[in-house]
């Protein structure tokens, strides 16, 4: 069976989204969680470009993908800032340490 480009890209989309979701659930390290989030966004980007190539609207999907890349980078910056500050105040990257915020 010959897979089309769109079907091959969908395999990648499902794989990347699955790995990212698994990483979000299994991770306890804040930095690892951001890495998992980045992998999820890579899957979403691939889905956008694949949809563009399937519909013949590549320019529209490219302009949307650019917005996603910028938003994704800002999310990574904010997440790392949060992680570094948590490490400074609590001495660890462990998400369980954040339970100390509970009143």
């Amino acid at each position: 069976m010959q897979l089309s480009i769109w079907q091959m890209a969908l395999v990648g989309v499902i794989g990347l989204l699955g790995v990212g979701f698994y990483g979000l659930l299994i991770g306890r390290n804040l930095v690892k969680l951001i890495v998992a989030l980045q992998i999820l966004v890579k899957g979403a980007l691939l889905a956008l470009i694949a949809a563009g190539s399937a519909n013949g609207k590549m320019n529209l999907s490219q302009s949307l993908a650019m917005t996603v890349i910028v938003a994704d980078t800002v999310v990574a910056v904010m997440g790392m800032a949060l992680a570094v500050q948590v490490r400074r105040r609590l001495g660890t990257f462990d998400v369980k340490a954040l339970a100390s915020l509970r009143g």
Partner: protein
Amino acid sequence: MSLLILIVLTIIFAVLAIHASRLLNAALWLAGVSALVSLIFYLMGATQVAVIELSVGAGLVTILFVFAISIAGENEIETTTVLPKPLIWGLTALYVALLGIYLLPASLAGVPAVVEAPLAEVLWETRALDMLVQVVLIFCGVLGLLGILGESQAPITGTLADEMIARRERELAAMQQRAAGAGED
């Protein structure tokens, strides 16, 4: 066929990034995922986004990760997970199954022939609001970077301060030992 090999390689790199024991290794595997994804974009015809993904995803974000890890240091965390492992596997399998059920039928549809406006027109006229949002987001990113660099506001925790004192004492002891050794000669 080369596209399928790249896609499988990307998923393998993503798994390695999740399972890397050191944070620096995880950041570098993530850079690999970004580079491969940008190569896939190029092969699919999205050349402009491929260039941006390579420079921002594989370049800027990796530098950011390495910078933040070098500031905060590596941190060994016990390997037990917050949720029980069977539940994690079950949820992931359910997620992938749902994605497959809803996405794969869409892949059987044919490709319509569409004549599209050039990228510059789509970017600056059709999606003009997006560009405005991007400018605001970039400002947010700069503020976030200040959050990484804002060292002076945060107090050093007890463990870090103790570590610094112990290091200073070790250095002092070594200096005294050297001085004593020089005196004997």
